[in-house]
């Protein structure tokens, strides 16, 4: 038994002399800091999207996410604390596989998120928590960490729309800050979504932004 351990130790020493020692922690950090070149929100992560105004494209981002999810053929869940989802302006058919949960308070919305993230049937979970950032910031950190762990354990997407940065345990924080202009009313939905996707891609591709948010 001891001989085997010695042999293993010797092999390890040989290997480290050739390739150098890299700790497991630093490997993890490298992965976190690596910029996301796919240009889209990564799965298995808790992503926060801070919408600095009322008219910056948060709801259009939700539609974009729903459209992408529909192609996968799985369910999407929308936790709506603000109760602002408008079916009339949604592209027809996107509601087919969408579950709309209209929460009445912050506790309900966090619990609903917890339940939905535990269910693999929902490959996309979006929460619009923009109506009550102050109370949510006061929520215990363990609630957010639990949600983060659940997001890591699943394959799907988890996006939280907020008015301001909610918790330090978000894996990635994006910002939508450009207000819609009057001309946008006459623009096609696809063009608007492309603009938002571009904004997100710019933030994801920028190593500085990603490193800063990951830290």
């Amino acid at each position, binding site marked *: 038994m001891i001989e085997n351990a010695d042999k293993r130790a010797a092999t390890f020493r040989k290997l480290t002399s050739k390739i150098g020692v890299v700790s497991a922690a630093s490997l993890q950090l490298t992965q976190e800091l690596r910029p996301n070149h796919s240009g889209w929100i990564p799965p298995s992560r808790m992503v926060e999207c801070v919408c600095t105004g*009322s008219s910056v494209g948060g709801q259009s981002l939700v539609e974009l996410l729903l459209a992408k999810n529909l192609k996968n053929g799985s369910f999407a869940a929308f936790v709506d604390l603000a109760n602002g989802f*408008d079916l009339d302006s949604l592209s027809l*058919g996107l509601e087919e596989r969408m579950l709309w949960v209209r929460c009445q308070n912050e506790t309900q919305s966090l619990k609903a998120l917890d339940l939905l993230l535990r269910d*693999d049937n929902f490959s996309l979970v979006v929460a619009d928590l923009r109506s009550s950032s102050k109370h949510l910031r006061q929520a215990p950190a363990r609630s957010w960490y639990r949600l983060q762990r659940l997001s890591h354990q699943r394959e799907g997407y988890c996006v939280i729309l907020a008015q301001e940065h909610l918790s330090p345990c978000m894996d990635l924080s994006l910002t939508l800050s450009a207000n819609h202009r009057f001309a946008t*009313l006459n623009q096609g939905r696809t063009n608007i979504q492309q603009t938002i996707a571009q904004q997100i891609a710019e933030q994801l591709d920028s190593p500085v932004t990603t490193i800063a948010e990951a830290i």
Partner: protein
Amino acid sequence: MFLCLFIDNFRLQAVSRRQALPPALPTALTNSSGNICELNHAAYTHHIRVGMSMPKAMSRCAQLKIVNPCLQAEKATQRLVWSNVWQISPKIELTRIGLVTVQLYRMDFETLCRQVEHCLGQLRRQDIFARAGAAPTPDWAELAAITAEAHSFKLKPDKQQMQTLLDHTALNMLPAMNDRTISLLDNWGIRSLGALARLPRNELGERLGTSILSIWDLLHGKTKRLLRFTELEPEFNETFPLETPIENLDAVCFLIRRAADALEQQLIQAGKVARAIEITLNIERRSPYRKRIQLPETTQQADLMERLLRNHLEQIQLRGAICEVTLSLDAVPPLGKQAGLFQHSVRNPWRLAETLDQLAGLVGEERMGSPRPINTHRPDSFTLSSLPTEFSEVDEATFVLPRIGPNLRRCRPAPKAQVQLHARGPAAIRSSIVTGEIQARKGPFCINGDWWTAMPWQLEEWDVEVADKGLFRIARKGRAWLVIGAYD
């Protein structure tokens, strides 16, 4: 080869199971004259015996639980035993109360042992304690079952092994032997069935009469009676009336589990699957609570049904103690269906059903679901329906319709606003949502409807750009201005 299942104190066990009485509680069953006719082991240890009067029995054990025979409980238990035995062989005879005889065909002993052990285990889970025996004739099988150790199986495959068993079996173990014959044989020095079987037949008949000849033939395996097979129609409901009402969820779940196990056996026996499950909880001095749950997938498994019901019961609050639990199934033949190559279905329908049930308990059933438009022009009209569990291939052409402008994020309820007009249009706005000068506007879009009813509606909508705030939709309803939402 024949198999016998013997259930000692069958009527008492049936009542105890129905009332969920613990086996450790001293329990006795009384007959019509008020005397003890059956008792469990716990009562026996308190020196209570069959034939005692109730006061005498109570004087020996104050905790003694006295129960009356219940025909419904007996029928339910018999059905349960029948369904369990049916999985071994469908040729079943209900010989008498507490005794079931099964005819076996081409079965190897290893398989038989495994199946009987499984059957006894299943019954034990339902608080029915049976013993089993198998032998070449039905009467030998009955003897083997009666003489088997508690909750076990005694297999006597040939005549030689049966002879050994008879040598170790007392005379009174045979139900056909009367006390007079036993005492007479005892005087002769015959104390086991094996010794009786070794006596010469004719001489025995000359001395004890013809009745002993049938016993002698039975012991030699010479009588092979024909079994009268019974078919019981499955009943997909189980009821547990409770003498002491319960308030604890775990206790209810225990009964649900027991009922689900029994129903599972019924489903297997009938070759059906459950499509929906209905639970009825009779509450003291209140109207009963009834809930029908459509199962996400047809199933026979008790585990899944119990989990779904437990999950549902965790979400509700009852206003009294429960005095009866009834579980019934909507059983249907299994549907043979092949999914299309590109057809998507839910990954885990049971998990989905649980999540939806938990969410309904959290936010309320009316506040969650899949939104569907209603056939009206009235803005913000929708209904929430349940999520579909199966859907066909995605056809992008059907859902991606060209839309103009960004999505709307509604304010519910729409807050009132003070709007300053200029040139017949809004020029500035002041509200809890947005305040500022209106830089650009589009409208009015006049919409109305339901004018043919008693509740007509009419709106004048405007799309406006507020300086440094973005795009909003406002509307005039009568004389009041409302902020409908933001273009987000």
